[in-house]
């Protein structure tokens, strides 16, 4: 049985509140907070990017897995903010973890589901026996155009999973994918910020694929919402995942441990993977967890995990996700945020 041996998250310490962004654009902060169900978001520091956050999250995952970076046979990172257009993020991460040179590596892109696709491939490599351990990572320093609705949610964070076939903390019972050609959100080459189709990103995109994937994997597994202790959805804002979960028949209590967006923002490729880490932080042996990601373009990956006894031994080896989320926060004003995010353009 293939599954997760170790997991880890990383969230930068910086935050900016919805009110601070709305003040600059003359926008209605209470309206945005109510509409997006989101109060603040994480912001990467000026020396942080998808690579550095992936290293931090992976170190936590390796600690919990109890293996050395040298033993990792594959490093896959899913992100839509890889620092380089050409040159992998994964090589730097693998080097930093000591996994080189006998290591498979590639970067993944599928909007916000690139992280779960990286996890799927890591699992496939282990299941096929090609490698013993593989690392699947979802990480993003998300981009949102200044003044756009996305600027209130686009945040930063990473989650990493060491995949193996032994000493599991969560066995993967089933994976499933639901995908169509649905262009709801995109960024063309040489464009600085992504564009989106407004309300088209809702029903025909996020909800269609989230429902299709969740219903598909549950049908395949012969399971129903009440069979799961927890469920994690992709969370572009606070509203969508809660609405999707309740409509599918899940209860708020099943959704909340992995529902981080209201105080984290949308970490894009990191969103549902980070939600999985915070859920594993509190899960008990034997419990079932459903994960349904979503990536624009569009598609959803589904995973059913069964938590093992080993979770109790490893969860406190690294910092819990909520520590990153709720402790040691530094709030930024818009000017500092704009500087950190490279929104102030200077001559070279």
């Amino acid at each position, binding site marked *: 049985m293939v599954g997760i041996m170790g997991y880890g998250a990383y969230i930068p310490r910086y935050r900016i509140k919805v009110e601070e962004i709305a003040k600059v654009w003359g926008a209605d902060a209470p309206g945005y907070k109510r509409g997006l169900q989101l109060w603040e978001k994480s912001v990467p520091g000026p020396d942080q990017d998808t690579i550095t956050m992936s290293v931090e999250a992976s170190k936590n995952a390796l600690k919990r897995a109890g293996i050395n970076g040298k033993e990792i046979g594959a490093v896959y990172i899913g992100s839509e903010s890889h620092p380089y257009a050409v040159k992998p993020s994964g090589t730097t991460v693998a080097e930093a973890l000591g996994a080189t040179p006998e290591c498979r590596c590639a970067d993944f892109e599928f909007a916000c589901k690139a992280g779960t696709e990286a996890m799927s491939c890591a699992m496939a490599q282990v299941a096929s026996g090609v490698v013993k351990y593989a690392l699947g990572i979802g990480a993003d320093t998300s981009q949102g155009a200044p003044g756009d609705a996305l600027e209130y949610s686009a945040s930063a964070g990473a989650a990493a999973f060491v995949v193996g076939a032994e000493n599991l903390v969560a066995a993967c019972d089933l994976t499933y994918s639901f995908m169509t050609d649905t262009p709801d959100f995109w960024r063309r080459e040489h464009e600085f910020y992504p564009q989106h*189709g407004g309300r*088209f990103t809702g029903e025909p995109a996020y909800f269609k694929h989230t429902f299709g994937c969740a219903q598909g994997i549950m049908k395949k597994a012969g399971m129903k919402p009440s069979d799961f202790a927890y469920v994690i959805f992709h969370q572009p804002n606070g509203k969508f995942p809660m609405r999707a979960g309740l409509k599918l028949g899940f209860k708020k209590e099943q959704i909340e441990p992995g529902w981080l967006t209201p105080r984290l923002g949308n970490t894009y490729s990191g969103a549902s993977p980070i939600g999985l880490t915070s859920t594993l932080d509190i899960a008990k042996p034997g419990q079932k967890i459903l994960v349904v990601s979503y990536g624009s373009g569009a598609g959803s990956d589904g995973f059913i995990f069964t938590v093992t006894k080993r979770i109790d031994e490893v969860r406190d080896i690294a910092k819990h996700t909520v520590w990153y989320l709720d402790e040691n926060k530094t709030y930024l004003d818009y000017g500092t945020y704009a500087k950190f995010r490279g929104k102030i353009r200077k001559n070279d």
Partner: protein
Amino acid sequence: MRDVAIIGIGMNKWGELWEKSLRDIFTEAALKAIDDAGVDHIDAMYIGCMGSGLFVGQEHLGSLMADYLGYGPIPATRVESACCSGGLSFRSAFIDVASGINDIVLAGGVEKMTDVSGDNDTYALATAADQEYEVYNGATFPGLYALMARAHMQKYGTTRKQLAEVAVKNHDNGSKNPLAQFPFKTTIDEVTNAVMVADPLTLMDCSPITDGAAAVILCAADLVKNFKRHPAIKIIGSGHATDTIALQSRDDLTYLKSTEIASQKALKMAGKKLSDINFCEVHDCFTIAEIIVTESLGFFERGKGGCAVESGKTRIGGQIPINTSGGLKSKGHPVGATGIAQIYEAVTQLRGDAGERQVKGAKIGMAQNMGGSGGSTLVHILEVI
């Protein structure tokens, strides 16, 4: 001039119809109307559409729709008068049949508005305002109607709550209309606390962006005996009037001259008084519009429209039920289709088919459809034969 009757109506559920194109939406409604009438052909058709060029990059709708409906080579005409393109399509079909040129004519309206971003929708809609004197200076339709609301509040003491009452009533009616885009009920608090669009108008004071179509079949009254599926509805009055397109050219921002004149013309043709009207569909593109329109039609004294809605006079069962369909606010506002959908509702009421929202004993109904901020208005009066 011959008498003209409506023998068929067709409409699909309105909303964000992502899976359907402009031609799909129109053709579905048109086929429903043809089926409802039980006719085996139509002699001509008119299509009300305000902005297909800007919304979906398609013009030349007459030929396109006749072809996709399978009725080419009939004469087919696209009609444009901003948000009352539907009303004008209906009047054009009425004149066509009344003149004796054609016997059976389809009047339709369609708009596909969700294929472009909100900014592009705002731009496309603003082409119905005066580009040189209003739009170039930054005005949008919510902004123009907000000016009218402010003026009405200042002149007559109309309150924020009275504006909200329009939305509450229309959503209440719309909740009983299975074809409405937003068939939910709302409250005064929800309307007043919604996101501000143009002070004093919040999001819930504004009609939505909608994809939708509606169609009706008109027939020479002396041929109605051949089509007995439904009670025939006679078009007894048709009025059309214009006013300055720009607000700054008007004497009074709190009154709609084109609406008053179109209404008087329609009533005169019908030989009826306002008190003969049992219900009225009006163009509530914004909540303030319904208040000003009900005054300009003459149902209430100037300045009393806000009090009328607040006291329930415009609810179903009240003095004059206004927007039993849910209006543009709850039913949706695919601009070119709205005028035809008002006729659809009026016919539904006069046939006695309106279910939970039925106005008891309705015999005569009125529909008022308006372009821009009142630069043009169509008023029609229908009576069940």
